[in-house]
């Protein structure tokens, strides 16, 4: 999948869960930068990403999701597997 298309889909998933678009999709973006992105939102965002792309992150990968850059990278890798 093209990176731009992936970023657009991830942005939509995140906005759906958070119910706002007050964030910029930069690689350095972390949960603590975004209003309402708490642990429940994290759980919902990851669940919805896995459902949308029919992928499943393993436990090590979940712990690596420190910022948006890593989320994009790992999602892309899982889609291609």
């Amino acid at each position, binding site marked *: 999948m093209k990176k731009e298309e992936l970023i657009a889909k991830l942005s939509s998933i995140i906005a759906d869960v958070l119910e706002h678009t007050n964030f910029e999709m930069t690689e350095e973006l972390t949960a603590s930068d975004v209003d309402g992105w708490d642990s429940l939102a994290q759980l919902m965002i990851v*669940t919805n990403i896995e*459902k949308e792309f029919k992928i499943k992150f393993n436990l090590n990968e979940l712990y690596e999701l420190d910022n948006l850059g890593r989320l994009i990278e790992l999602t892309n890798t899982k889609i291609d597997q």
Partner: protein
Amino acid sequence: MNNYTIRHATKKDIPFLAKVVIEAEKGGSEILNYSTLFNLSEEEVERLIIEMFGHGIDGCEFSVTSYMVADYKEEPVAAFGAWVENSKGNKSSNIIKSNLINYTFSKESLEFLASKSYLLKNLIPVREPNALQLECLYVNKEHRGEGLGLKLTQKQEEFNKKNHPALNKVQVKLYANNEKAINVYKKNGFSIAKSYKSDHKEVFDYLPYNEILMMEKII
């Protein structure tokens, strides 16, 4: 207290710790949030909690290393969990717990939670980095009134203070209708720092109460 010994939990305690988490979460009610919010039976929840403990992750209520256990005649009868939040730059315990749940629970259970997540919006207490978090205290009915809760609290504070000399705050969250526990914590130097409340009437079908208190003590 002479008949009881306090020790750190080991992997062998996982089945007991799963029961501790379940009973602590019920808070004396019949409602288990992991059952109601994920549409699972209590037996299924117990199995999943055992699996989460089995991953050996530190820093949350599903970590064996968080718990101290009280034994009576070499059998565990009480336990209390504690960890220092964001210790050594680690992720927050809520995120650690989220990751474990995401990995362990089924897609269907997570989708059920998603459909009910609006109920939890204002009910996720914020934990302070570097504060000691107390979670999941449980004492078997036959062994209550022996001071085990207080003893386990003291041991957790001593142990964690020794490993984190700069530790100066303890936090504990509990349902606001648990007046007995609130009073015990108040008597032991805790005060109510914050309240988290949901106005959805439906929340009473999924949680023991609609308000969670964060209590704190400076040590």
